[in-house]
């Protein structure tokens, strides 16, 4: 029987015979897993709340006004810019996006929303998942995010009343819901979509703005004929269209105010949780090895190699960690079923896999010291000579 098979036998026997003790550690790892997966899901959920609309845009480039530092709220484009952008070679389609904030007051409790203006059938207007798309012009129609529909209990055909401020007065506008979209949260608020004409009519405006009926888009979403030629087209846009700057979607998201800071905070929480996991597991296995010094001494005295002893320790750590991570993942899944859609947690396959991989590594990382210690125990310990 080779050393590895012997190690596996010893490791698994001990785990099984002392299953209460090891299960306890697995439960600790399960709780750490739960925490890590929820922090990751929270990060994803918060990120979605901030970027979802932008991330789901059917576009590769975003045109900003020059010197706006790629901040959407700081960018205000001349209405003629759209035509110029559409003429640039490589641009398949371009749609203006108008952003503003509003409050829906017809619900039981007022709900703040992102009021987004976009041209139907152009980049910037999301696909309608239920109902129909907006009709152009002054339609007094609105397409709302499904999350908003769930939260407010509204559906297609209902009329919502929104409140904005124009000049020094509150303006109340009625809009009829004609369609629902999926996953269109922006700046942590559900989005409602109207045509540019309606947007200009109902949005909050200063006294000065009220004198001008032309809507000014904040940004233009550009869909390319060849998405692989984004850099070249961006360069052409900047060369041919005056007073603009161009960014890809990732850069645009990164420059959403607070997004990067928020993500790095959440990631730091995740990393600290993993570090705590490393210390907890490391401490447990170190104490366990210290308790087993005479036993390891006997094993070595009767002819177990260092490789066998070290491998047994590693196998034990991996088995206990895998059990803990598996339990934690199951627990997370079961808990996630009970969360209402309004809670900003989102499980993303890649980030869950990455977290599980990181969690699987914290066991061996934490137990590394104890493995080295076990390997270095002298067989003389069995004879009480050391």
């Amino acid at each position, binding site marked *: *029987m080779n050393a590895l098979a*012997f190690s596996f*036998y*010893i490791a698994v*026997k*001990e785990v099984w*015979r*002392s299953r209460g003790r090891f299960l306890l550690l697995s439960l600790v790892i399960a709780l750490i897993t739960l925490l890590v997966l929820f922090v990751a899901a929270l990060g994803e959920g918060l990120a979605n709340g901030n970027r979802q609309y932008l991330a789901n845009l059917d576009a590769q480039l975003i045109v900003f006004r020059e010197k706006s530092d790629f901040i959407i709220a700081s960018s205000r484009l001349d209405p003629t810019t759209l035509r110029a952008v559409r003429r640039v070679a490589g641009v398949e389609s371009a749609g203006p996006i108008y952003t503003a904030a509003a409050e829906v007051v017809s619900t039981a409790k007022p709900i703040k929303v992102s009021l987004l203006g976009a041209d139907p059938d152009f980049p910037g207007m999301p696909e309608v998942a239920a109902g129909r798309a907006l009709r152009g012009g002054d339609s007094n129609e609105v397409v709302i995010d499904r999350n908003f529909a769930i939260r407010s209990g509204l559906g297609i055909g209902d009329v919502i009343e929104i409140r904005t401020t124009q000049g020094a007065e509150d303006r109340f506008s009625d809009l009829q819901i004609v369609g629902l979209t999926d996953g269109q949260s922006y700046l942590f608020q559900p989005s409602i979509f109207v045509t540019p004409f309606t947007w200009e009519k109902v949005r909050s405006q200063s006294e000065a703005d009220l004198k001008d009926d032309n809507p000014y888009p904040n940004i233009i979403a550009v869909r390319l004929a060849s998405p692989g030629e984004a850099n070249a087209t961006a360069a052409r846009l900047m060369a041919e269209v005056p007073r603009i700057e161009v960014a890809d979607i990732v850069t645009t998201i990164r420059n959403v105010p607070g997004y990067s800071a928020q993500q790095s905070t959440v990631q730091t929480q995740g990393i600290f949780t993993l570090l705590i996991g490393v210390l907890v597991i490391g401490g447990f296995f170190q104490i366990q090895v210290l308790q087993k010094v*005479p*036993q390891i*001494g*006997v*094993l*070595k*005295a*009767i*002819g*177990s*190699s260092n490789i066998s002893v070290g491998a047994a320790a590693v196998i034990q750590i991996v088995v206990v960690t895998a059990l803990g991570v598996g339990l934690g993942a199951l627990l997370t899944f079961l808990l996630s079923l009970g969360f209402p859609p309004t809670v900003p947690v989102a499980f993303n396959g890649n980030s869950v896999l990455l977290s599980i991989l990181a969690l699987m590594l914290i066991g061996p990382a934490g137990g590394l010291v104890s493995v080295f210690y076990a390997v270095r125990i*002298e*067989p*003389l310990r*069995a*004879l*009480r*000579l050391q």
Partner: protein
Amino acid sequence: MTKTVLEVRDLVKTFTVDGLPIHAVDHVNFQVHAGEFVGLVGPSGSGKTTLLAVLAALLTPTSGEVLIDGRALSTMGEKERVRLRRSRIGFTFQSNNLIPFLNAQENVDIMLRLNGYERNGGRNGTVELLSRLGLGDHLHFLPGQMSGGQQQRVAIARAMIHNPALVLADEPTAALDTERAFQVVKTFAALIHERGGGGIMVTHDLRMCRHVDRVLQMRDGRIVAEYNTASQIDSFASSAG
């Protein structure tokens, strides 16, 4: 002529304590033959356990030579020493003898697992040996569920199961009452004689020497007396009261 399973030639083991050399084992010479059970006695600090550690290839001697089954330990690397301990030496220790999470049968089987199941009739050999030691109905008992005497008998079975050339026992009766201690030593002696390997038992309890074939008495690292005949041994053992 009976085969020599252990030969110790002019063995010295020196430790340095506070800059001063301490000869824990001082020019020791002796042999153990197949089927011979030797008692190694002496007061605390006489060098018994150090000698045992050198014989077990756990300590490297300062000078001299140890040959087990005709093979010199000095010619072996660490891996070979580990292999030797696994295949040609059997051990029982004073305490912490058994692996606490393995039952009696598994504790004995561990030597077969280390050496390969095909030898010694595999698990059947374990059950047979434990049954002979009166533990047939304790095969699935964990060490914590057995008495000290039962644990020592399991340890003896583990030391014997792979038919080693040499069995080394460090104070195997230290934790036992007199009656159980005699039982354990008697069983040990019977198995050594029957299986044909050599055996050395370190003990500070001279009464236990009644069941050995030869007694080596140590003091200050040296062998100061040797008792070979039954009457000499009996008289020596009786001197302990």
